């Protein structure tokens, strides 16, 4: 694996990628990129086309049209060269049951063009990094737990120090401890390898990824940094207010701070208190003054808290909107 070649602008580039199975369109006009060293989350509901896209990028499936490239090399035209820059861990992480972990990693290292004198060192390093040395190295893969099998898959992916790692649901079926371990491992790859990771655990993606790409029904609906997407897709801020007031009274008080403020009908909680949701435009100055304004007005107020929109809200907002809205240059 030569480092002499200049670093391309995009480690992974999908340009108008389309895959059709007869009359069924799995993905259409998908365009996104992953910069070198960047960790990108690839999100979408079930059947959105995530695994299809990843398989096309990894060269195990041909697209119908469009271009997929890894480290500047076209996957369709130069598959062997593209595969030298990339490692792919499929969704179900298929592994040969009858090989021992160390034997398997040695075989994969040789197939991935690791220099013969480097094989032992590389295998030892990834086994150490993936915490496989003590409890799994001499065991048959078929005897390993799901968590250790996932670790073996990730160890295989980073074995040849590729420029790009594509992981399809790497934390599926793992317990919280194992998820933490895999998360730390992926974090440690930042800056060294470009990582494209698909996961249904949005909290996980938010913790690990620099950027997200969201697809729905085979089309791109959003891509960018989480903060940028939050501003774009959720152009308002929400407050939870627990107060003793009628909805109209609270609405009038909020409107005094910002006429664009909206108050819902409220949900009664214990002791005559009501929980309301107040929504303000994202850039509203009332965001800073709402609490003070309500207290100044003498409103019996038990709680006021700004809601933090997570990736889950962004994902829901993105997958609700039309795919055409998500296309950006």
């Amino acid at each position: 694996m030569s480092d002499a070649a200049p670093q391309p602008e995009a480690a992974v580039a999908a340009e108008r990628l389309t895959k059709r199975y007869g009359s069924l369109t799995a993905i259409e006009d998908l365009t996104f990129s992953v910069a070198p060293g960047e960790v990108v989350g690839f999100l979408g509901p079930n059947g959105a086309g995530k695994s299809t896209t990843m398989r096309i990028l990894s060269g195990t499936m041909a697209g119908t049209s469009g271009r997929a490239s890894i480290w500047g090399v076209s996957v369709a035209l130069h598959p062997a060269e593209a595969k030298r820059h990339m490692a792919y861990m499929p969704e179900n992480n298929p592994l040969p049951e009858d090989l021992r972990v160390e034997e398997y990693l040695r075989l994969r290292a040789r197939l991935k063009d690791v220099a013969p004198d480097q094989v032992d060192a590389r295998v030892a390093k990834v086994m150490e990094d993936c915490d496989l040395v003590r409890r799994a190295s001499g065991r048959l893969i078929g005897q390993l737990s799901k968590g250790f099998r996932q670790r073996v898959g990730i160890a295989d992916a980073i074995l040849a120090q590729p420029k790009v790692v594509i992981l399809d649901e790497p934390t599926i079926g793992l317990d919280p401890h194992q998820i933490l371990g895999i998360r730390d491992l992926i974090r440690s790859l930042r800056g060294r390898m470009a990582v494209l990771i698909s996961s249904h655990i949005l909290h996980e993606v938010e913790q690990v990824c620099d950027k997200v790409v969201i697809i729905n029904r085979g089309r791109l609906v959003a891509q960018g940094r989480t903060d940028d997407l939050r501003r774009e897709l959720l152009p308002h801020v929400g407050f939870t207010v627990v107060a003793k007031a009628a909805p109209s009274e609270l609405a009038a008080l909020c409107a005094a701070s910002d006429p664009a403020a909206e108050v819902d009908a409220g949900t009664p909680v214990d002791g005559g208190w009501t929980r309301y949701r107040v929504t303000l435009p994202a850039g509203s100055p009332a965001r800073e003054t709402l609490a003070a304004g309500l207290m100044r007005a003498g409103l019996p107020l038990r709680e006021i808290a700004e809601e933090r929109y997570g990736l889950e809200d962004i994902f829901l907002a993105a997958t609700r909107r039309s795919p055409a809205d998500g296309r950006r240059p």
Partner: protein
Amino acid sequence: MRHFRTLLAHELRSALLSGNTWASAALFLALMGGIHFFALLECSRAPQPWTPVEATFRLFWLPLLCVLPLLTMRSFAEERRSGTLSALLTTPASTAAIVWAKFLAAWLTWAAFWCAFLAFPWIVQARLGTAGDQRLGDPATLFGGLCFVLVSGLLHVALGILCSCLTRSAALAALLTFICLLGLTAIGGAMESLPIESWSWLGWLREPAAHLRTFGHLQDFAGGILDSRPLVLYVTGMMLALGLSVLAVEGQE
């Protein structure tokens, strides 16, 4: 080429450690031992126009149909079913290297089975034969017969690999291989038994039929005649089957 060597070593190791290989070997040796035993028995009862080794080799189609499908059925079908073939295809190793490695490993295993069979005539010769008595195990017949099964095995094993590429079920792959090999052997036998020479309207078939007479090839090899035509037939057939296997793997993945 480096990938091919790595893959071949892996396939040979897997074959050596696989229970399927050892079960196939046991079945093969039991079949061949039985055939050879009955051939010896026949020869001991009355003079025969053939030696026991010749008679055993003439029944080469029996282990071919019963054992070879077991040997090749898992090569691709099992890997496709478990998904490990997809993982293998994400490495820089080419599909052709993968197909050739699996083919060569299966062919070498098949060759090892036949080499193990040579122990039977040798044991018989050592226990019963007298010095210079070639009736029990003529080395030339043995060598010629072995050459035939190994050369024809190139095509037979390649067909098994192709059938394994076409399905995810090892059992179905074995059945497909059985049908292909049965068809090939039956056509070869039919080409010799049918009086094509006397049917003028089938004149165009004479030349191709001469190439396909499987049992005639066995006789030629056992008689020490090295005809290039069967060699070309089996090698080109093997290349065609392996080429189709590469296309099948690439097409399905």
